[in-house]
């Protein structure tokens, strides 16, 4: 059976994998397998049976001609798929490995950022309580700030490495071609990955739901003790950091499979709108941040100013769905 499959894959290699072609290949495969099985039942050896089945396959050109596909067109990228990259199984696996690495880099980066915030809170509160008499509050804050910036610098470095890695696979966002068997293989791998994905997401959600608990506990066991309360906050943030890490690593792998199989957000139609939304997003969000920093520093409106983020988020969501709806038509 494996031999027949390999033979057919070779025959159909380089043929554009339309719905029609996949169905045809699968019908022919079933047909050949049945023939093989019957030959074996009639006492033929495996090699003989394979030999007969393959010798009776015929000529692929006859079939492609009938379906109006010329082999050369597909092989040399004649007219229709000129310049469309062809993704092999190795390339797909390489992409998955890279995405996995990018997931870890980004996840650790986000973790470092949250750890930085924890450091800032913990050090400043510790100094405040322990060295009250010497008026060293400020010093504590400075040490906390320095620690935070060191960690954030590390995170930024990780983000840059991840970004550069990601940039190498820009072409995945554009249309590409993939052989029948590569697609099947990836579908199997995606199915195998599903339990891991589900477990990671569940653990993440549970952590997010339970994260206020340390806060409650710390306020129950030690009322009015800043140090214990800070411990509670630190614990809360730590749980969020772990959850975020799980979401990012699991999500990126899932996303990469969807991208390779062109499902979910990556159907050929959606690929176009994704770029529009992405470009708009890359302009709008930094702009919003600049506005926020401006009204914060210049007018000291940090407090009501933050609403600019949720408002932009909602407006941007509306914009994205409008673009999607328009492009669907």
């Amino acid at each position, binding site marked *: 059976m494996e031999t027949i499959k390999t033979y057919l894959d070779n025959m159909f290699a380089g043929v554009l994998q339309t719905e029609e072609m996949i169905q*045809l290949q699968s019908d022919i495969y*079933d*047909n050949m397998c049945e*023939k093989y099985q*019957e030959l074996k039942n009639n006492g033929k050896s495996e090699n003989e049976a394979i030999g007969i089945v393959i010798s*009776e*396959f015929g000529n692929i050109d*006859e079939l492609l001609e009938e*379906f109006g596909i010329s082999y050369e067109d597909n092989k040399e990228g004649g007219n229709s798929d000129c310049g469309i990259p062809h993704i092999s199984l190795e390339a797909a696996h390489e992409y998955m490995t890279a995405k996995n690495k990018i997931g870890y880099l980004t996840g650790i980066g986000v973790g470092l950022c949250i750890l930085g915030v924890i450091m800032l809170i913990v050090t400043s509160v510790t100094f405040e309580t322990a060295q009250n008499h010497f008026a060293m509050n400020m010093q504590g804050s400075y040490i906390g700030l320095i620690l935070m910036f060191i960690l954030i610098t590390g995170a930024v470095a990780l983000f840059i490495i991840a970004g550069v890695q990601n940039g190498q696979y820009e072409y995945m966002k554009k249309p590409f071609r993939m052989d029948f068997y590569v697609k099947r293989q990836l579908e199997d791998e995606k199915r195998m990955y599903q339990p891991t994905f589900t477990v990671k997401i569940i653990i993440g959600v549970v952590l997010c739901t339970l994260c206020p608990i340390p806060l409650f506990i710390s306020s129950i066991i030690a009322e009015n003790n800043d140090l214990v309360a800070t411990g509670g906050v630190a614990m809360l943030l730590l749980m969020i950091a772990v959850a975020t890490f799980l979401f990012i690593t699991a999500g990126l792998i899932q996303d990469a499979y969807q991208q390779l199989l062109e499902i979910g957000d990556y159907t050929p139609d959606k690929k176009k709108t994704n770029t529009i939304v992405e470009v708009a997003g890359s302009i709008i969000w930094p702009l919003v941040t600049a506005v926020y920093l401006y009204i914060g520093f210049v007018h000291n409106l940090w407090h009501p100013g933050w609403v600019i983020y949720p408002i932009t988020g909602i407006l941007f969501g509306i914009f994205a769905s409008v673009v999607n709806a328009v492009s669907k038509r």
Partner: protein
Amino acid sequence: MISSDVIRGYSDTIILYLLLDQDSYGYEISKSIKELSSEKYSMKETTLYSAFNRLSKNEYITSYYGDETQGKRRTYYRITESGKKYYREKCKEWKLTKEVINCFIEEGYDGDD
């Protein structure tokens, strides 16, 4: 050995004949062809599926998925009314062809007897 050039013009006719009585699927058809021709002719997969495509395009046959209890879904083929009409025309055409060619075939010239 049969010249495939001659038979190619009639592969559609052969398939339609096998669909006259009942719907069928790829392997069953190719098996019947081999059996009915006493193993003198076996249709290649590519010929068979080219013919299916051609016949479907001309609406001489329709296809549907069978519901097998075990294993994969098979694609079944059914002959249409225009398919039957086309088959009858091809039968007439073959009779005529046979008559014409027979005029130029000398019995006993092939040295078999």
